[in-house]
């Protein structure tokens, strides 16, 4: 049951974005009886409508509105208008996501104290600790149905995992398993068990993988307190003379501008769009954009240190069969500067279908070196590197000086340069990944460059002091009491772990805080 709220209703919480952060927050608040309107730029496609075809699915779900890029990262050259591979649809990137659900490690909340000052890195400790977040991690794991938690069995290992595991054993890695996955290994929470379809990145047609689209949002809607408004692109957040936000201007499906009044606004458009919206909401009172007295809005853009390694074997693997990312090695996730870098990385199984493999294996590459690799597509195994990258002020989202989207809103430019720590980590991971596959007989290994960013973080960072960041430890803007940030852009630093479990945990925690503040009438 959907609850349509009036545009003039200024008692509602307006959330921008229905992904991991926004979708979770919306349901949490609705469960507490708080009225919520989620504005979602994309359309609503139910999971039955997902498509088992990489490019068709991309066309259905991906955010393809124009963006520009700059900096020395290779994505800027190969995909100048596609810095990120994320979703524009109800459910956000939880439609595409693979489901890996890991907690941060304790030291990853305290990177400045642990790693010390690093030149060219804007390290900072989070204003919260692992201990503070643990109860929310526990709630989130239960909510998402994460395997190997809450007595939920692990997923069965597919071919790609078996190759990884055999190599991990040979290399002496101790912690290799089928992962903590928000994918049902058995039916749970009205969701099917995984059928090993192998199109997790294209949206799970069985609904076996957690997504806000069919896990959180319908539950929220059932309370009568949540309305999700698809095809509603937020353009501007309005405020009054006292500096409190009062409503959100959005373009509806016909491109008409409307304003939804609000008591509270929570921004959860992912780490490119959230700062874009805050910057675009500049006014005479806030000339540098909303919540930006620190000047940190849009800065410290992180994307994890990534890359892939594919191994080619003389016998078949069929890596694309079954769960895309159900296999992990955690041994390298520790902080051990003796390896030549601070922070750590995870190795996770990954597979792409032939069309995406052709596009991403070596973008721009051609000739026999490229094609003989693809010739052995069914003899390949693959893994993805995901490690902590260094926040840098220079890595940032800005509003393009003259390029505008269809609604007249300046497009986002994404600037990124690797820090030398990122490069050292990636090279280490390439070596380990190659050694792992060679240990099980790979005849050729392919260190594959990072794809357009699937993890986008840090552009509205959390900080203890207002001068150092955009939001406090509840994701509440330091400058504006009734403005919140509820997505991965609040991350102070990125950790080595895939971010979504942390985004969801923070959203659950934030919902408690908002409800408390509302009943105390302080916002």
């Amino acid at each position: 049951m959907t609850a349509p709220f009036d545009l003039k209703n200024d008692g509602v919480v307006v959330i921008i974005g229905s992904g991991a952060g926004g979708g979770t927050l919306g349901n949490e608040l609705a469960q507490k009886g708080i009225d919520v309107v989620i504005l979602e730029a994309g359309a609503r496609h139910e999971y039955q409508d997902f498509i088992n075809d990489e490019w068709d699915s991309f066309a259905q779900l991906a955010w393809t509105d124009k963006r520009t890029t700059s900096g020395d990262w290779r994505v800027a050259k190969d995909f100048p208008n596609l810095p990120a591979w994320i979703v524009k649809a109800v459910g956000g990137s939880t439609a595409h996501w693979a489901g890996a659900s890991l907690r941060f490690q304790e030291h990853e909340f305290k990177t400045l104290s642990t790693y010390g000052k690093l030149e060219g890195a804007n390290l900072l400790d989070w204003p919260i600790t692992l201990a503070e977040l643990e109860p929310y991690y526990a709630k989130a794991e239960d909510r998402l149905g994460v395997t190997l938690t809450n007595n939920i069995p692990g997923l069965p290992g597919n071919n790609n995992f078996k190759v990884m595991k055999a190599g991990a054993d040979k290399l002496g890695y101790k912690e290799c398993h089928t992962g903590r996955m928000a994918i049902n290994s058995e039916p749970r929470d009205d969701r099917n068990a995984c059928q090993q379809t192998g199109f997790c990145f294209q949206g799970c047609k069985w609904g076996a993988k957690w997504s806000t689209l069919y896990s959180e949002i319908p539950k929220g809607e059932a309370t009568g307190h949540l309305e999700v408004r698809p095809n509603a692109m937020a353009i501007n957040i309005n405020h009054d003379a006292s500096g409190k936000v009062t409503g959100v201007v959005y373009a509806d499906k016909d491109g008409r501008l409307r304003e939804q009044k609000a008591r509270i606004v929570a921004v959860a458009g992912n780490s490119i769009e959230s700062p874009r919206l805050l910057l675009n909401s500049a006014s005479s009172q806030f000339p540098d954009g909303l919540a930006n007295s620190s000047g940190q809005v849009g800065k410290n853009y992180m994307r994890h240190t990534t890359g892939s390694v594919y191994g080619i074997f003389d016998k078949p693997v069929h890596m694309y069969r079954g769960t895309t990312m159900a296999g992990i090695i955690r041994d390298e996730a520790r902080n051990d500067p003796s390896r030549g870098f601070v922070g750590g990385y995870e190795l996770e199984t990954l597979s792409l279908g032939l069309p995406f493999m052709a596009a991403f294996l070596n973008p721009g590459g051609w000739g026999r070196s490229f094609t003989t690799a693809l010739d052995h597509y069914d003899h390949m195994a693959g893994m993805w590197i995901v490690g902590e990258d260094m926040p840098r002020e220079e890595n940032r989202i800005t509003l393009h000086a003259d390029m505008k989207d269809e609604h007249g809103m300046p497009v986002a430019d994404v600037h990124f340069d690797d820090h030398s720590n990122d490069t050292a980590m990636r090279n280490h991971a390439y070596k380990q990944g190659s050694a792992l596959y060679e240990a099980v007989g790979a005849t050729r290994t392919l260190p594959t460059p990072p794809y357009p960013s699937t993890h986008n973080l840090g552009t509205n960072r959390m900080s203890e002091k207002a001068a150092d960041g955009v939001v406090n430890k509840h994701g509440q803007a330091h400058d504006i009491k009734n403005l919140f940030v509820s997505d991965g852009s609040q991350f102070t630093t990125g950790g080595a772990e895939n971010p979504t479990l942390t985004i969801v945990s923070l959203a659950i925690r934030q919902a408690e805080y908002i409800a408390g503040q509302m009943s105390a009438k302080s916002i």
Partner: protein
Amino acid sequence: MVTIYESKPVHEKKPGLSRRELLKRGGVGALLVISGSAVISPEHAWGLETSALKPETMATLIQMARDIYPHDQVPDKYYAIAVKAHDEQAGKDLAHKDLIEKGVADLDLKSGKDGYTGLGWEEQRVAVLRDIQDTPFFQAVRGGLVVGLYNQKQVWPIFGYEGESYSKGGYMARGFDDIEWL
């Protein structure tokens, strides 16, 4: 309009097919024949009708496509399908027609008196391609192939990719963990 059609092998056809030009390809010795506005593969019984680009240009593009992404087990037909979009686009967009026709003419010029397809070895042709790999022409052809070639469902089985799997119940009972050699 470009149509890829299944044609009868040449020897079954009525006379009147003028072999205006024979385009030899190195190594395998397969032939593409230009007839009127079509590129025809007599041996493999398909043809490609062009409307905006010269058929000779199309034949060169097919060879070029194979040299950029050489898969010896993939028949010419799929390379032809992969480049036919350039004919369609050239019909709508004069600038694109210019880009392709001039690009191919330049490629022929750089390749010596018998032109690009007259170079017998892939290495020779690739050397010419290396020379032009940063040009908008080369990038347009290469870029189009990434989706044009590899997103053809008909080529997937050649690479051992099985495609859509939901309708078959996923791989739960179809070998998701059938690896035996580890």
